[in-house]
């Protein structure tokens, strides 16, 4: 792969003394917001990241983009996000290896059959072309797939996969062209608050006076929120993932088993990229790789698709999910800190949601647009306890 763009970030300049909008976190969420806000005419936007771009979950995820969800608002949003992905390469001038091969959800646990049926119904009502299919139809979609123990499946041909890294560079590059300033390797140390508002952000490279702050720091967002005195219940959890040698195209959809945490797909680069959640994983910032993970993955994946047995794993790594206790993101401002917008708690689905969330966040910020998805998922919902988790289509 090679990207041919003029000016990548990594600026070594001194930080400016003032930012009208300071976006903390140079992942896809922060950069998409920066790009769209600049496009709408917002001036003096600064993005800072504590490491290199793609260092966090934005550079570590499996690149899946899907509209198969259980709640109608998530389906609507993800339909819009898929539309953004389709035009991204042309708009940004960068190849993101986007391929719509669909997502295949298999159900092996009988108790989840009605869940899948209900979710497909919801998706169809929203206009997503998901189909409930039989195990034999699933086997036709993936030649060689073992459907033993599969009761039913769902398939949406418009879901897809992309390569996350160039997506980041696409947003970063266009944002830079629009005058956004991006600084990497900057640590946020503390905030100065005045009348509940963040007035200054103190970093490892100096202090900035700020008008508005956006907390787009993914798994680190509870820590950044806490700097403003805001305690939120989202927590980081390690998720492991791997990739194989490149193969000729043979696997069209992303394959996943509902409720079992495994997923794998073939990227446009030819590799099989797959992960598998571990229900025993404890919260924390551990992002080491384990032998246990590749063995569990290999056992499950080869029992599902035996021809993978001869495929070689070349690399494994881990990233952090920013897990929200009710499975829904944490968006907008808390009453306690009205000039800090949270774009957090995406529970492993931030990358695929960022193209649309970044656009909506920018419209709210610059135009004052009311966005019901933000209003429904505000940080103050946790003040009266933790709402029940109602999202059943969470993978990993």
């Amino acid at each position, binding site marked *: *792969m090679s990207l041919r763009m003029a000016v990548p970030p*990594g600026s070594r300049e001194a930080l400016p003394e003032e930012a009208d909008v300071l976006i903390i976190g140079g992942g896809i969420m922060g950069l998409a917001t920066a790009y769209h806000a600049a496009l709408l005419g917002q001036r003096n936007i600064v993005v800072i990241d504590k490491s290199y771009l793609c260092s966090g979950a934005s550079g570590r995820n499996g690149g899946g983009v899907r509209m198969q969800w259980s709640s109608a608002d998530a389906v609507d949003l993800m339909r819009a996000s898929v539309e953004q992905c389709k035009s991204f390469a042309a708009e940004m001038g960068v190849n993101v290896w986007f391929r719509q091969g669909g997502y295949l959800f298999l159900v092996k646990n009988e108790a989840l059959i009605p869940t899948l049926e209900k979710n497909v119904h919801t998706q169809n009502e929203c206009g997503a072309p998901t189909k409930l299919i039989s195990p034999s139809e699933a086997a036709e979609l993936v030649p060689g797939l073992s459907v033993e123990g599969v009761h039913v499946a769902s398939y949406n041909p418009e879901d897809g996969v992309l390569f996350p890294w160039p997506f980041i560079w696409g947003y970063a590059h266009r944002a830079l062209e629009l005058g956004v300033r991006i600084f990497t390797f900057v640590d946020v140390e503390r905030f100065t608050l005045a009348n509940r508002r963040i007035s200054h952000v103190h970093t490892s490279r100096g202090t900035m006076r700020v008008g508005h702050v956006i907390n787009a720091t993914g798994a680190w967002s509870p820590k950044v929120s806490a700097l403003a005195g805001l305690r939120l219940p989202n927590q980081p959890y390690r998720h492991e993932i791997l990739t194989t040698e490149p193969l000729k195209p043979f696997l069209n959809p992303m394959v996943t088993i509902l409720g079992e945490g495994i997923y794998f797909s073939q990227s446009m680069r030819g590799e099989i990229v797959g992960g598998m959640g571990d229900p025993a994983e404890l919260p924390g910032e551990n992002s080491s790789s384990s032998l246990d993970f590749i063995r569990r993955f290999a056992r499950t994946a080869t029992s599902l698709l035996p021809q993978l047995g001869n495929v070689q794993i070349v690399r494994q790594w881990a990233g952090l999910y920013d897990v929200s206790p009710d499975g829904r993101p944490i968006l907008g401002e808390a009453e306690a800190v009205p000039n800090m917008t949270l774009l957090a708690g995406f529970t492993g689905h931030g990358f695929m949601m960022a193209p649309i969330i970044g656009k909506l966040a920018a419209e709210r910020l610059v135009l004052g647009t009311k966005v019901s998805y933000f209003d429904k998922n505000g940080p103050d919902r946790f003040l009266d306890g933790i709402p029940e988790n109602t999202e059943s289509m969470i993978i990993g």
Partner: protein
Amino acid sequence: MKVVVCRCEDVLESDLLSAISGGNEDIESLKRYTGFGTGVCQGKSCLVHVASILERTARKHPEDLAPFTPRPPVAPIPMRLLAAEDEDTVLHLCAKAPEGPPR
């Protein structure tokens, strides 16, 4: 003249020079920006060349250039070996090479 630095992922010296001139002066950023080192060799044949290009063009001292985080496995491993329950099965599997998907 085209100089290929990363043969797994077709990354050219000119791709790396353009990335460096834009401020990507560390190896992790260069990997993310150009994709070098992400193929079958996992950097074993290209990392040293990238380091020497950085040393030459960004005037970095070799001791200041950390390699990218090494990731397991050390060498590619077929999934059937990892899926095996015990050592005997692994040895048995190593003796024969079943059909896989097209390469």
